[in-house]
């Protein structure tokens, strides 16, 4: 759940279009059970779920806004504020920890600054290097088990799954992904 709600601004033109496009794909009469796929579709389109888009979606689906907000905030993969760069998820769960996720996370902190969020608690000292000075092009967080433990430690950088991840492997993948979310 985001601590600071994004501004309650009306949906921008682009946001309305994204919602309308997603709705057009599910057919004339969207049902409540279409909500999860619709939220995925809007996020795939916009990179996140702006509050205005959720208002518009609620209106179009004839649902109270709090119902849509309640669902959108329940799931970890839905982003309720704009990405600050390429999305990077780093597993710091049990199996990855045993295979060096702690050190990986500290290396990443030194490179990209503190993460958006630590799923598994803070990892030692944040030695902020370049990340603190330059605007971070990477929006990263640690996440629970990604289900690829045979290749631990694992990460997902810009949608690409990376096994045996090191800061170098991740930097290379991020380089290819570019600054786009």
């Amino acid at each position: 759940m985001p601590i600071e709600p994004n501004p309650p601004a009306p949906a921008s033109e682009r946001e309305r279009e994204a919602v309308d496009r997603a709705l057009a794909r599910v057919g004339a009469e969207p049902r409540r059970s279409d909500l999860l796929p619709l939220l995925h579709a809007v996020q795939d389109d916009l990179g996140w779920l702006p509050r205005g888009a959720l208002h518009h979606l609620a209106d179009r689906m004839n649902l109270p806004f709090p119902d849509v907000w309640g669902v959108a905030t329940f799931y970890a993969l839905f982003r309720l504020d704009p990405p600050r760069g390429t999305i990077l998820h780093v597993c710091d769960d049990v199996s990855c920890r045993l295979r060096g996720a702690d050190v990986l996370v500290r290396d990443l902190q030194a490179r990209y600054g503190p993460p958006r969020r630590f799923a598994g608690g803070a990892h030692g000292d944040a030695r902020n290097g370049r990340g603190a000075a330059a605007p971070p092009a990477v929006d990263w967080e640690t996440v629970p088990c990604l289900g690829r433990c045979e290749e631990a430690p694992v990460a997902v950088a810009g949608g690409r799954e990376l096994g045996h991840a090191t800061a170098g492997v991740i930097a290379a993948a991020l380089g290819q992904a570019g600054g786009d979310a």
Partner: protein
Amino acid sequence: MPEVRRLLARAGVADPESLEAYRSLGGYAALARVAERGPAWVLSELEASGLLGRGGAAFPAGRKWRAVAEAAGRRRVVCNADESEPGTFKDRVLMEQDPFAVVEAMTIAGLTVAAEDGLVYVRGEYRLAAARLRRAIDQAERAGLLGADVAGTGRAFWIRVVRGAGAYICGEETALFNSVEGRRGEPRNKPPFPTQAGLFGDPTLVNNVETLCNVPIVVLEGASGFRRYGTDRSTGTKLFCVSGHVERPGLYEVPFGTTLGELLALAGGVWRGRRLQAVLCGGAAGTFLGPDRLDLPLTFEGLQPVGGTVGSGAVIVLDETASLWDIVLRVARFFQEESCGQCVPCRVGTQRQLEIVTRLASGRARPEDPQLLADIGAAMTDASICGLGQTAAGAVLSALALRPGAPSSSNGGASAAHGRPGEVV
């Protein structure tokens, strides 16, 4: 006991995006037999096979199928592919490497319980698995193996794929239903059970991916053939996800009854010639077992007396240098993060448990902390409405049993060993 390849017979062998490849390796022979012999035969073979659910709860599959088959009204089939138990990746491998097997097994379920609506709920992070399943469904539809007339039976069965969005709790079957229905993924009270009132209130057969993938084997080999592997009460083979401090982490299929030591040997043993400290068996919802348990047969009946569980099949190995309490702390934080917050024992219990484990892991334990953990654990186990809260204390309490002393007095101090896992990589 040797490694076998039954559930994994096609994994890494057949092109997972080709129906022809699947058929050339025996795929869809089971559906043909089901079409020929009928639902009553399937139900009796499944019951006689002794197949138990592989998602963690070990419920008899045959009994569940019969309950739905005998329920009144519209019925549904749901494949629970929301695999999120830490250390577990078997369902991902099955879906990515053998997606047609999941589709065929669900189709068999549809014909057997007379359902027309099938749904796979795939973990949101498993993009490749979802894509492969969608491809398999498309091809099966075009080949007449799915859709308005399944394999010439005159029966309809459709499957759609729904992606989750990052919530461990949605692996709980009733939370999964709520999620599909467009609600927060909060579990429902049971009863009514899913077989009575499940997805959209209809009687619903919900099975884990691995459970379903066993069904074509039961159909093709019959109950007796299926029972050639495993023990009397834990029949067939099991996929174990071995990770952590072993030489060859990976997915291993072995007959039930294989010992923990034999499984670890298959994975090359503890890495770097080190000694075993503990195994976290069953993932975050599982229990820690010490090195004295290597002779334990991996069966439902063998693990239960020592407080263990087969669970999801996660086997996470900690060598002698690992910080046990750092791992326990991660598990406690996992449950605190993933508790849906709906029921009080779990919402408050996982938070309090995390606070106490944080003290233990940093060597600031209070004398009353072990008892407090036991009390909170008992409250969560007894009073939580779903399996998340009911299992949230298992790993923590088993670690405490393994290391009764304060963690700072053993090799388990989190602060002392903080950098160790990384140093050895």
